[in-house]
């Protein structure tokens, strides 16, 4: 076993355990915290794959941004004593069926796909200059258009948020 395999095992164990805990915990803030661990471990997985940029983005956006927002909204709305009700059988069975179908589809797809075995040398890394350039490139594999579309979407969301926040005052 190489150290990389060991780390992979640790990360995947963390992801699996905390994913299960996230959906089974009946306290909503605990669930959010477990979700944070899942996301951080996923970031670790990216580091293991040497996708440093993706890993950092994962940490900034998901762990540092979205989870903080989720926790923040929980702080505003719920009380410490609150516990979610135990779901009834009517809810458990469809949930299990849906999860099972999803798992079967994903696993069968992965198993059917033939991954080409390629050993990436240790020093090779995704070049962030390439990422940056393709983000603003208008050529064939450029992402300038999606980038701008997303920025307009975010702007619209921001304006909407401001209007919603203003409305409450008067």
């Amino acid at each position, binding site marked *: 076993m190489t150290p990389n395999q060991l780390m992979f095992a640790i990360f995947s164990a963390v992801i699996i355990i905390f994913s299960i805990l996230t959906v089974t915990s009946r306290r909503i803030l605990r669930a959010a915290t477990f979700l944070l661990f899942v996301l951080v471990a996923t970031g670790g997985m990216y580091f293991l794959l040497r996708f*440093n940029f993706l890993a950092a983005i994962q940490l900034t956006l998901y*762990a540092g941004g979205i989870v903080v927002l989720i926790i923040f909204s929980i702080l505003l709305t719920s009380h410490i004593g609150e516990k979610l009700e135990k779901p009834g059988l009517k809810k458990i069975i469809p949930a299990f069926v849906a999860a099972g179908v999803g798992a079967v589809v994903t696993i069968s797809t992965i198993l059917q796909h033939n991954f080409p075995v390629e050993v990436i040398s240790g020093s090779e890394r995704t070049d962030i200059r390439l990422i940056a350039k393709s983000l603003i490139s208008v050529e064939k594999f450029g992402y300038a258009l999606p980038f701008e579309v997303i920025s307009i979407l975010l702007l619209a969301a921001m304006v909407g948020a401001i209007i919603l926040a203003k409305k409450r005052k008067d």
Partner: protein
Amino acid sequence: MNFSIYDFTSFNQWIDKFLFDNLPAFWAIVVEMTIIGLVVLLFYALVGLFLVYAERKVCAFMQNRVGPNRVGPYGFFQTIADLFKLLMKELVYIKNADRLLFNIAPFIVIIASFMAIAAIPFAKGLHAIDFDIGILYVIAVSSLGVVGILLAGWSSNNKYSLIGAMRSGAQIVSYELSVGLSLITIIILAGTMQFSAIVEGQANGWFIFKGHIPAFIAFIVFLISSTAETNRGPFDLAEAESELTAGFHTEYSGIKFAFFFLAEYMNMFIVASIAATVFWGGWMPFHVGGWAGFNHIMDFIPPLVWYFGKTFFIIWIMMWIKWTFPRLRIDQLLTLEWKYLLPINLVNILIMAFIVLMGWHF
């Protein structure tokens, strides 16, 4: 073994080679990681203790006092005595608190600051990891710390803690923008996010001089917003002692309180060392382009001295700020960020990009 205090690369390679020669590859890596972990841990504790002492002395001198002077010479061992006191204190169990989150919170805070240390270059060849996305990585991991503060405030089942946590959440989320943008200003100038490359890029002049006005503005903005991000005065609203008793860590006692305390000081150290590295050249000696003789004399001072000198100078400025100003109110805090720092920052980035394009920097 070729060891020099000016370049640690060969020293590291020697250890690496020694381990790989004597151990199987798996165990060599495990031992290496353990050594690095222990060294960083020890460093963390020592710097934390020293900073607490330094803060007390600095604020004492600013307030016409002498500060701690009973334990050891000039009270140097006061913080160690305090550490033992905190270790022996009872860990109070809070009624109706969410125990799991209550216990996890200090660790999240401390791990976030712990992870950030790994990327900081202390001297040539003396850093744990040298990412090509160094600055982005530091911003990413330091944004995790706020989760710990939010959890601490919520799980203590105390209204003061909750208000403190809310304040701190709003504060850190908004000031992260300014920290990131002010660093981006320098990334534009440096053309890289890798810490080692940033430091090497300042071999013929620090960026604060090379990028003149925009770099200076970026430094000021970084200083302000990083002070806010580390929850230090005058931005210490999350633990405003005259309003919220102790804010989010009101209910913590003993070593768990010490963790928050230590993490605050380590965060201060981290932002100061990022400021030193990005704006003031890190371990790079003071060089003036073209003055070979002068540069040569400056090279005799070891890089560690340069690094710690700059870092502690910036920490001293942060302490000076803290012990001079009254605290801001939460709405003023957000006004400062959204109406002043952010627009200035955005314009500053534009100016910096323009200057770099035109080649007006030194």
